[in-house]
């Protein structure tokens, strides 16, 4: 049979177009995402690795890291526990104002972080009734740890609840009803049926909120007052160093947070793979 030149079917993209688009995608990701990242690392190590390590060991830096960790360690578990309670309640009751709660959960993501900070100043600042009353009783919120904590809680509030809501509405509900007919109590149902179903989503959303808590800048900046070595979180410390033209130190601090970004990304990929594998097994 004689050879015939095969056409490229017009149901697929032409090979030249395909190559162009792939090259374009790689270029966009390289310029927009990879280059800034590389720039941070190069600048952080611009004076050599030993200087880099010295910078990370400075006391201001350590205090900042510790403060950030402390904020995350309180804010994330709180949001996770209350998030689970909320979503569990939402999925096990017939609620007329569901949409309203959803909107409430969306708000912290869509409000500018600066506005978040301002809201807390309006509530708990010196000039506010509640803030003034607290101040009289010796409790300072704004420009102090409680303010930072509240701002952190606000911006990380939705992560767990938003991730779990669709999962808890999922197909496992029939298993749950079967368990209830067999006489299992709520706590047992939660441990044995709900938790295994949501564990990857829960882990994933906790990691996301952890990253956001450690890395939040705008909301925290407004309520912190930037007292170095006292109310400076790691991101705020980066800004302080940057404003003092200590670029190498600022970038060194940034690598710590960037590392956090990479870890988040990795965990996200692993969690998604696990989730896929789990659902394949079903």
């Amino acid at each position, binding site marked *: 049979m004689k050879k015939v030149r095969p056409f490229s079917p017009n149901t697929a993209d032409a090979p030249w177009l395909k190559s162009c688009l*792939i090259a374009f995608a790689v270029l966009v990701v390289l310029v*927009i*995402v990879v280059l800034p990242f590389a720039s941070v690392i190069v600048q952080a190590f611009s004076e050599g690795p030993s200087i880099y390590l010295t910078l990370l060991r400075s006391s201001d830096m350590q205090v900042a890291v510790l403060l950030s960790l402390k904020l995350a360690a309180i804010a994330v578990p709180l949001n996770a526990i209350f998030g689970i*309670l*909320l979503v569990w309640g*939402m999925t096990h009751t017939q609620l007329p104002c569901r949409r309203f709660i959803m909107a409430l959960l969306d708000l912290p993501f869509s409000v500018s*972080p600066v506005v978040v900070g301002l809201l807390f100043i309006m509530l708990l600042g010196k000039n506010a009734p509640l803030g003034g009353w607290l101040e009289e009783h010796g409790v300072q919120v704004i420009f102090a740890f409680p303010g930072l904590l509240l701002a952190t809680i606000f911006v990380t509030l939705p992560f767990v609840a938003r991730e779990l809501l669709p999962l808890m509405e999922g197909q496992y509900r029939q298993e749950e009803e079967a368990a209830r007919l067999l006489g299992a109590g709520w706590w047992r149902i939660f441990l044995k049926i709900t938790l295994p179903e949501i564990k990857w989503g829960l882990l994933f959303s906790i990691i996301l909120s952890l990253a*956001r808590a450690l890395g939040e800048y705008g909301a925290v900046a*407004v309520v912190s007052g930037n007292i170095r070595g006292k109310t400076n979180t790691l991101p705020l410390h980066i800004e302080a160093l*940057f404003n003092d033209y200590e670029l190498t130190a600022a970038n060194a601090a940034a690598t710590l947070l960037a590392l956090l970004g990479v870890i988040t990304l990795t965990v996200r990929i692993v969690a998604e793979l696990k989730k896929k594998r789990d659902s394949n097994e079903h």
Partner: protein
Amino acid sequence: MSSPDNSLTPHLTLGIGLTYVCLIVLVPMAALAIRMATVPFHDIVESLNSVRVISAFKLSFGLSLLAALANTLLGLPLAWVLARYTFPGRKVIDALIDMPFSLPTAVAGIALCGLYGPEGWLGTAFERIGVQIAYTPAGIFVAMLFVGLPFVVRTVQPIITNMDFSLEETGACLGASRWYVFRRVILPTLRPALLTGFSMAFARGVGEYGSVVFIAGNIPEVSEIVPLLIVSRLESYDFTGAGALSLVMLLASFVMLLLINMLQRRMAQ
């Protein structure tokens, strides 16, 4: 659904969870509302009616719009490539798209500043052709482009992945060219997702602070966006002025949220 003897538990957990959310989210908002209610309406209008405020709003919304548009134009081919083609390194590119989501904004800020600054790799390159990016509105645009990139890609990509091949094949069988099929079949199918991604990127750009402050230059009436103006008013103890700006920003967030929700509901159909 729930039997009467044990229906108390979910209501209780719902009550606790809802109280928590309201305490954290609603109470501070109520505080702003009450505070602003005591200020004469005239004063609020006054504080918003200045050249500096108006140019900040123009800058914030204008640049966000531009960046969201650019992100839509970049995001569509990116989503297409990731959804349709297999090539070495595809998984890496796919993962890197999420980087702007997981990188703290302060890091993005100084990273972009280092890259586009006068001594940065791209900064010097642009300088040679006479364009300054850092400390100008162009810098703000670059930062918004960075933080908004994942939105369009991540909303459009699953739609392309799940799109029925037979639609394109039908088009081809009916004699349409690939380009015609793209315009009349593929693009209309993706339109709601593109709009959703666009709105999300826009909303993020309007509120963005951390990645912008470092590179913006923050010159009033030139490169000062609204969140920056709020901060500067707070620092000068102008609570009314900052509150008024925040009210407008909150209102904008509500509108965007509503719009995005509507679009998403349309997408789900």
